[in-house]
């Protein structure tokens, strides 16, 4: 019997009637679909992310095309959402900012939650011992720190070094445009955010793995001589996949927000790359707001709606998985 023993549904998935032959994912999706707010949030997130993906195709102008003759204009037929201080099209900037948010959240979720958090959580929970102690203590230190302030410190100190390193790569290889395209600052923001956004996932997964480790199907697999790799990938991972989705959905807002705050502070994504943080900063003076409210209100509305949608969807998903 080499195939994975069918795992009992985790306690969280019990609660509402389960139809015959329905997978756990289908149950959760069915519950989630009934929640109108959650669906609206999902739609909103898809629209904003879709705008980010399609920005190079759909944006009417380039995000860096400066036209000083037409600066600080209100909405018009040529510029649907007006222009900023340098005459750049606000609609295009907003779409490219959504692209930045999309890139940063996806990259951090992939590396921080899916890779680091997942692997460390599984290993710590399954192997236990010194590895468990080490991972949990390091996690405790990270979660005990004020993340935003440490991120600011790391980015302001290492930012110039990373830029230097990228310049060196440009000079010594055929790769070009790393610094000019803002790639350096993206890399820095994404790697430092990953550093702080793995802890939650790792903790949740470890706790679940600790419980799963004692279950019969894992013991059976071990008794039949399954390697740790096999136990982890075939028996444990499928049973914590819900928790991974949950922890991702609960951190998305935090990741997106952190990038915006860092960029506002001047240590995140560097100009001319578009970011909501940079747009908000440009519109944030009280006098500026009085004269040109669209500079703040356009990115502000999008950001608020996006963060609100992340929160609502995360809550609803949590409820759906826990059987409500």
């Amino acid at each position: 019997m080499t195939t994975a023993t069918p795992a009992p549904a985790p306690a969280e998935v019990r609660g509402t009637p389960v139809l015959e032959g329905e997978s756990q994912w289908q149950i959760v999706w069915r519950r989630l679909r009934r929640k109108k707010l959650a669906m609206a949030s999902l739609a909103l997130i898809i629209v904003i992310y879709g705008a980010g993906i399609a920005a190079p195709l759909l944006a009417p102008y380039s995000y860096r095309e400066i036209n000083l003759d037409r600066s600080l204009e209100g909405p018009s037929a040529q510029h649907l959402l007006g222009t900023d201080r340098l005459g750049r099209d606000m609609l295009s900037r907003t779409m490219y900012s959504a692209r930045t948010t999309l890139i940063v959240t996806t990259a951090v979720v992939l590396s921080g939650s899916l890779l680091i958090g997942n692997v460390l959580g599984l290993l710590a929970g399954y192997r236990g011992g010194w590895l468990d102690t080490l991972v949990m203590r390091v996690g405790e230190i990270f979660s005990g720190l004020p993340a935003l302030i440490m991120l600011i410190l790391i980015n302001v100190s290492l930012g110039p070094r990373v830029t230097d390193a990228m310049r060196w790569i440009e000079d010594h290889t055929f790769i070009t445009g790393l610094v000019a395209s803002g790639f350096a600052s993206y890399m820095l923001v994404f790697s430092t955010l990953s550093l702080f956004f793995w802890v939650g996932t790792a903790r949740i997964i470890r706790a679940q793995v600790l419980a799963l480790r004692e279950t019969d199907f894992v013991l059976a697999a071990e008794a039949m001589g399954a390697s740790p790799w096999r136990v982890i990938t075939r028996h444990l991972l499928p049973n914590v996949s819900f928790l991974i989705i949950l922890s991702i959905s609960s951190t998305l807002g935090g990741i997106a927000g952190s990038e915006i705050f860092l960029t506002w502070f001047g240590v995140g994504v560097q100009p001319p790359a578009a970011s909501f943080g940079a747009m908000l900063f440009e519109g944030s003076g009280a006098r500026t707001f009085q004269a040109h409210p669209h500079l703040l209100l356009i990115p502000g509305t999008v950001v608020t709606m996006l963060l609100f949608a992340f929160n609502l969807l995360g809550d609803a998903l949590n409820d759906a998985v826990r059987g409500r």
Partner: protein
Amino acid sequence: MSAYIVRRLAWLPVILFVVSFSTFTIARFGPGDPVSVAAGQIRDPEVLERIRVERGLDRPIPVQYIKWLTNAVQGDLGESYLQQGFSVSELIFPRMWISAQLGFVALVIVFAIGIPLGLIAARFSGTWIDPMIIGTLLFLQAIPVLVLIPPLIWLFALQLNWLPVGGWDGIFDVWWIGGVIAVPIPDPHLYIPLIAFTLPGFVGVARLVRVSALEVNLSDYVRTARAKGLSEAAVQFRHILPNSLLPLITVVGFALASIIEGALFVETLLGINGIGRFLFEAVTSRDYDVILAATVIFSTVFVVTNLLAELCYGLVDPRVRIGSTRR
């Protein structure tokens, strides 16, 4: 019990060491060279080298760190580059005091308004009032302070002219009635920062109180209280309220954390001379000694508060300790 406290307290210096050492190392990697800062206009390599040796900057980083730490615990946090002639401690401590006052008032208000809102939501659970309260608070939480503050200043300061545009003038003003009786009233500078600090914080407190009040509501002693004919008000205030407040201790840490991090943006946007704005200025001018000192102070406050909250929770609810014993 005491073993638990000792174990948690023993963890504190470890975290503080890791925080300060990593902060120090990272800050030393920054491009700002403390030697050229100290030398000012002088660019003679020999002079620079002499200062480097004098200040021990040619030594390995751990040695430098120990020296910095020894000075730091004695209150010497280095010199500011931006405001020459001032030591970092001279600059930082008055600002910390301002931030601490503001943060404390904000924390009190978050709880003073969040708790009743949570109780009301629980009381009207099952009606439209409950989701409306929680939904509104969730929405308020989603508005970043960066987006919230400029419209607030515009509305209250520029349009209505009710409040000052920014700045800080203490918590209380004294209002003289007939020139004889002094009544303390909140300073007008206080309102906008407090709105910005507290609006995102209500939802955390309110939701926790709501869930815990709903739980308490189902307990036997509340049913007994209702059964023996106590008025609804007495049940709410004597039985439900005290017992739903317990989990709140856990969010003190969270609430304070968001206030500490919010200080960076609120103080900067409102021109309040607190430690948040100080850090912003230091970051924009790459004033590394200040960045280092401010980060270490911020982190220390953060870590200590979290630990205190955890200890309080352990004291109030002995069940918590079971979870903390290691497997």
